[in-house]
């Protein structure tokens, strides 16, 4: 019997389970409960989109900590606490805000194990929302995960299903390295699938072959996985069989699964919501060009937004984002069927 949950519910279940099983797990962030010190009700918001609602009531204000709007201080404190016996889950409301507080991750958490000669570990999860589609404009819509994947010492997780969101979150909290966990704000309610009630993990560094196929490999990240599925259904009607790979974690990146697929299909389309320059599409493209060139029967195609900030006007934002139609067009080009 399927147990269909939204990504929102799946994540909430993961938080309840990891906090119940390990008393060293704490959570902090801005308004993750809400109403702190205010005359009205506590847990007023449960996070700006309600993902953490109910946790403070269950686990108390000493484990679910609302913070002042001071991202550098509390992300830094989360990093320090991770070296001192806790497993903090710190929420950075939107990844765009990383502009004010990068140092605790860039120069501290990412470097400790290496520069201190292996003498400490920093078991930390930073949760953050990313992605366009909410008409939120240039400062609340970015997909900045390539910035983090660029940095040795950090791990980067981007779930595309509710099942993966729960399993990857539990794995991230139990992991002994700093993990940045990217949650697409549109997907909380847009995505739902079968989620077991028990606590389980999805290992970091293992891609998911979402759909098997023979003619072209589509690597898609986050919400783009669902766009790729729509595109593949259309293409199937045209007799083009797509294999869709969701890396699930971009650091570590499961290069092997991507290369094995391209070895069979000979064609690669990468769909990514991040900016095209120095992004994941460019990175995966370079890996395949370097290690799988012999298998390629057509040039690699990237489906990404243009290299522009994210516009506010709905008409422009829709134009900005990749779409199933754009993926269909790119796949047709790689199989030499653009005129079909």
């Amino acid at each position, binding site marked *: 019997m399927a147990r269909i949950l939204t990504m929102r519910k799946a994540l909430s279940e993961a938080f309840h389970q990891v906090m119940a099983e390990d008393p060293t797990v704490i959570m902090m962030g801005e308004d993750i409960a809400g109403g702190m010190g205010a005359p009205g009700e506590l847990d007023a918001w449960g996070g700006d989109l309600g993902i953490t609602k109910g946790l403070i009531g269950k686990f108390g204000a000493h484990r679910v*900590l609302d913070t002042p709007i001071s991202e550098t201080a509390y992300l830094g*404190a989360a990093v320090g606490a991770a070296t001192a016996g806790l497993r903090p889950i710190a929420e950075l409301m939107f990844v765009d805000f990383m502009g004010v507080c990068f140092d605790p991750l860039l120069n501290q958490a990412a470097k400790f194990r290496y520069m201190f000669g292996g003498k400490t570990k920093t078991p930390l999860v930073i949760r953050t929302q990313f992605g366009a589609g909410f008409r939120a404009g240039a400062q609340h819509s970015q997909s900045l995960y390539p910035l983090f994947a660029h940095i040795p010492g950090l791990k980067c997780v981007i779930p595309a299903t509710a099942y993966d969101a729960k399993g990857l979150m539990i794995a991230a909290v139990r992991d002994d390295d700093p993990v940045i966990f990217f949650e697409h704000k549109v997907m909380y309610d847009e995505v739902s699938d079968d989620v077991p009630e028990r606590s389980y993990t999805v290992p970091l560094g293992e891609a998911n072959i979402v759909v098997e196929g023979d003619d072209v490999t589509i690597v898609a990240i986050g919400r783009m996985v669902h766009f790729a599925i729509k595109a593949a259904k259309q293409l199937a009607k045209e007799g083009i069989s797509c294999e869709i790979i969701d890396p699930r974690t971009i650091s570590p990146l499961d290069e092997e699964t991507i290369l094995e697929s391209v070895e069979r299909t000979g064609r690669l389309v990468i769909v990514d919501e991040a900016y095209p320059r120095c992004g994941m599409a460019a990175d995966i493209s370079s890996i395949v060009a370097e290690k799988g060139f012999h298998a390629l029967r057509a040039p690699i195609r990237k489906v990404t937004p243009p290299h522009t900030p994210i516009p506010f006007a709905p008409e422009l934002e829709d134009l900005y984002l990749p779409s199933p139609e754009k993926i269909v067009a790119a796949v047709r080009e790689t199989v030499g069927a653009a005129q079909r």
Partner: protein
Amino acid sequence: MQLNRDDLMKAYRLMRVIRVFEERVRDEFEAGRIPGFVHLYAGQEASAVGVCMHLDDEDYIGSTHRGHGHCIAKGCDATAMMLELFARKDGLCHGKGGSMHIADFDKGMMGANSIVGAAVPLAVGAALAAKTLGKRTVAVPFCGDGGSNQGGVLESLNLASVWKLPVVFVFENNGYAETTAAGWAVSCGDIVNRAPAFGMPGIQVDGFDFFAVHEAAGKAIDRARNGGGPTLIEVKVGRFFGHHEGDSQTYRAKDEVAELRRDHDCLKIFRKKVEGAALLEGEQLNEIDRQAVALVDRAVEVARASDPPEPAALFQNVYVSY
């Protein structure tokens, strides 16, 4: 905390070891045997030792780019430190940290830090861990006058106060952020003036006087340990050397360093006080001086003769698992 004879001997020994260590590091650096950069703590010894005398291995400190003194005061092994500065495989961080990134978590030393002010939020986190885990440990971030102007440091003062954490913020004001005078860059004049704005007590002490630092730190650390929340201490000090070794120091007054060494040497002041009060004898202190020199001689000898890391170390310890 009352200081008995053993405490006084310990305090003097730690301060002297720091002084000798730093002077030898300068010599070794100038001779080209230490790679990178070094920022020397000489002149500020009474601050690190006056504070850390109150701390155990379970208590945490965060440090700065000028971190050797904090390491020694917190109990890090001087030989392992010297090996690290020499980039040797048996160094405290196996030669992968160096002077500005030296840490020893077994001693509660969370690391020197080459990002100005960055250790302050980290130490706030260590204090949060202590409070959450029900421990009576405290965290002491050391920070300079330059770091006192960093946004993350100001946020950390507020956060520690809001969460009422066991933190003692120690601002070592040596008068200069690199070349820039604190009198110009700290808008409120004295850093201690910022304490009331963050809802915590502030104390300013003479950092050349070990006893003044020790007393102020003792009260603040007791308060933090007993759940009273954070305190800000501004320690007024002066550095005997430049920002980094090799700094021409043309921004300083002509006789400034000579005056510091003559009138404000914390070791001389300490000796005068304890000998004057007949707490320790001059010969006991001279013996400590000789031991400190022997310790540092030995550390340098071992460091010079040791091996660099193996090439494989380049790839090790990026992650716990990947």
